[in-house]
Every structure is written in C-alpha cells, then in structure tokens.
C-alpha cells in the first residue's frame, strides 16, 4: 500500500481510484467495485499485505450496512496467481530532474526518521504534503521504487512457464504489404500537429481489434471447463519498460474506438505504464494481446500466449522488400504478422482466416 486517495467518510463510486499500491506490475491505481461510503481504512500506507487482505471497510450506500471491501487487490492479483505482491517501480521515476531538488524543503520528523531506517536519500524525493513537504508516505514510496525488479521478473517467469507447460500453441505467420497503410498515415501526419499524429502501432491495433470482432474464438479465456468467450474486445498492448520487464495493460473496447481515439489510448497507456498510474482493471482485463517489436529490426516474432488468454498477435519491423504486384516486381514496405493461438480453443484454419482479415483491413487504411 503506497497511499490512499480517499479518507473515511468519503463517498465513492464504482470504478473510482481509491488507493495506489505497488505490485509486481508497477504502481497501480486500485479501483473500487461498489458504490458506497468509506467507513474505515484498514491498511496503512507503507504496509505490505497478501493478496485478498481487507484493505478498507465500505458502508454500502443502498443497504446502509457495513461490508468488507476486499475486492480490488484480490481481483487485480488473481490474474497473476503465481505471484505474490512484490515491488518493482513507482511513479517517482517520472519526476523530471529539474523538479527533484527543493532547496528549502519541509520534511516531517517521522519522514526523516523513516528515510534513515530505509536508506532513502531525501534529496531525491518530491514531497506530496502541504507546500511540497516530504511525508512518511513519500519515503515509503521511494523505498519501494528502489527495490529491484525481481518481483516483475518472477511474475513474467511464472506466467510464461505456465503458458509453455499448459498451452498447446500453434503459430501462423503471413507477410502483409503495409505500403498502402503507411503511405496513407504519412499523408495524414503531414496535415497534423505533432500531438495529433498517428503511429504505426495504432493502425496495427485498429486492424487487429476490428478483425477480431468476427473471430470470437480468439478473444477470451481458457478456464478449467473450457473456452469462455469475452464480452468485449479489450486489447492488451505489450509495453517494454525502461528498467527491464514488460506489462501488457488493456485498451478497453478497442474495436469500438476510432483510429484517433485508439492512438490517444495507446499513448496514454504506454506513458502510464512507464511512469506509474495504470489502473487495476487495465491489468486484469486483456482478452487478447498485441506485441510489436517493430522498432528493433526484427523480421518476425513468435509470441507466447499470456494465460488465461488464448491468442497473441505479433508484428515485426516493416521493411522495404521486393513484392510482386499485378505481375510486376516493386519495392514495398512489408511487415510479418504472426498469430500464436491456443489449439484447445481454435484451429489453424480459423487463425489463418483471421490473419488474412487483418491483411485485408490494412490494405484499406482509409476505412480503418
């Protein structure tokens, strides 16, 4: 528990962020799943608690009765059931260097004492108390950020080992002529201010999400009793973190967003994944994942499904290649798209049709 965003007596509504916790996936905003009023905060900031612990007591707004608000952390971390709560990185890293040093700053005596115990350098801290005062919570948060990436590494290790152990993957790959999509994007970007420009990943994500709406067998979860299709298309986007490791938070309802909305959603998600502030629902809800090593010069990747999902789509680097178009050899920018899917939930024939649909959609970028 890094800090509470609400106090006893506050009214809260479903989906509101109520606390920030440090997990194996970074600093996460915990959302509440019920409307009501906060009666008591049970877990103080700086405390490490197991998954499933009661964090706060919530007074039910309808019934007026007290009920334990267990939900958020449990549901967040049940996703990565092999992992315990651990420590990776925090929002502190996002502070620009210029803001780090406050020449005359206020530091609470408790914070000073805690900093000494935890070995935190007070000069590197940004205070969040009144007038920028450094509080004990700030010190705890910094201490969490200083801990190594072991937790995230363990989470990835557990999930990927389980995937390779349990999921019978099949892999399909297809080369896609990306020239129409990239040329269209470049013409669009020439008309736009920096902030409104599109990136290639937005086109790939849009085509993937749109194609998926006709292939529900690839969008959902493999449970003990079989395949469970998901109600919406929540596209997980794999984001590499600067200090190592990765997360794949979801874009909610990706198929319902237009290209510009999807681009903004991706920017927002990547920036928050790297500087802290992902929401618990974003980490627990991906129904399929998109991974792109598009900028490393990798031709093709063979991704591993993130359980309990049943498919993952990968894109390599688009690069100029000889391409036969209407019987003539021309140079086109070509990208290799890969699908890894769970053979328990779908077959290669269906996977092949899905990749062909992505290809078709990317060929008509103005319709994306």
């Amino acid at each position, binding site marked *: 528990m890094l800090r509470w965003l609400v106090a006893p007596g506050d009214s809260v509504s479903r989906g509101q962020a109520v606390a920030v916790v440090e997990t194996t996936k970074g600093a996460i905003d915990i959302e509440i799943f019920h409307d009501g009023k906060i009666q008591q905060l049970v877990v103080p900031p700086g405390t490490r608690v197991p998954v499933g612990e009661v964090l706060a007591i919530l007074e039910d707004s309808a019934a007026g009765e007290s009920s334990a608000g267990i939900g958020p952390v449990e549901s967040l971390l049940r996703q990565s059931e092999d992992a315990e709560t651990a420590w990776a990185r925090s929002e502190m*890293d*996002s*502070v*620009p*260097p*210029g803001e780090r040093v406050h020449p005359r700053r206020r530091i609470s005596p408790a914070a000073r004492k805690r900093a000494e115990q935890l070995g935190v350098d007070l000069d590197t801290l940004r205070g969040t108390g009144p007038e920028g005062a450094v509080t004990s919570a700030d010190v705890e948060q910094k201490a969490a950020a200083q801990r190594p990436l072991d937790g995230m590494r363990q989470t990835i290790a557990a999930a990927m080992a389980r995937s390779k152990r349990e999921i019978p993957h099949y892999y399909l790959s297809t080369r896609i002529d990306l020239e129409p999509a990239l040329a269209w994007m*470049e013409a669009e*970007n*020439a008309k*736009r*201010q*920096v*902030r409104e*420009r599109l*990136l*290639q*990943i937005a086109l790939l994500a849009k085509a993937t999400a749109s194609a998926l709406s006709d292939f529900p067998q690839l969008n959902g979860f493999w449970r003990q009793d079989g395949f469970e299709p998901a109600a919406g298309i929540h596209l997980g986007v794999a984001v*590499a973190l*600067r*200090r190592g490791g990765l997360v794949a938070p979801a874009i909610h309802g990706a198929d319902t967003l237009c290209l510009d909305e999807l681009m903004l959603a*991706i*920017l927002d998600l*990547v*920036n928050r994944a*790297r*500087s802290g502030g992902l929401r618990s629902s974003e980490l627990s809800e991906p129904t399929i994942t998109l991974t792109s090593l*598009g*900028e490393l010069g990798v031709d093709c990747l063979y991704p591993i499904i993130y359980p309990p999902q049943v498919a993952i789509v990968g894109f390599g680097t688009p690069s100029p290649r000889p391409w036969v178009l209407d019987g003539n050899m021309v140079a086109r920018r070509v990208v290799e798209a890969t699908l890894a899917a769970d053979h328990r939930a779908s077959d290669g024939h269906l996977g092949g049709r899905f990749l062909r649909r992505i290809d078709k959609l990317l060929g008509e970028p103005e319709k994306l």
Partner: protein
Amino acid sequence: MNNTELRTAVLEALAEAVPGIELDDLVSAESFREQLDIDSVDFLNFSAALSRRLGIDIPDADTPRLASLDDTVEYLAARRLGDR
C-alpha cells in the same frame, strides 16, 4: 537563442518526454534511438515537448532531422533563422 541554449532545450525536452532517461553519456553526434533505446512513442513525446518548449511546429517530414543531438540543434538553428 544560441546553439548552447538550443542544446539545453533539446536535453530538457528529452528528459521531460522520456521519464527516467539517462543523458549523462549521450554522444551528441550519434543517434538518439541507438544510444537511448527509445521507441516511436518516446520520440513522439520528444517532438511534442520540443515543439511546445520552442513554440514551433515540427512537420512530420522534418522528424528524421531530429536523429541526434547535433542534428536537432542544427535543424532548430536553421528553423529559427528561417522563421525570423
């Protein structure tokens, strides 16, 4: 703004755009992408920060000229002369 000030502005824009980036060992003639392991999202953030700090629009076609610190300073110096 002289080249030293432009250089400072570029470094500040980088630090703002890419949280946690280490700029101490940056070689000014070598490409940002090679040295700093930044991706297209980082680069878009950088272009936007630079554009906002200097109050200029940077056309998409010009972004290849922001490849390294030296290139960027040279481009911005030329832009400012041209705008005057």
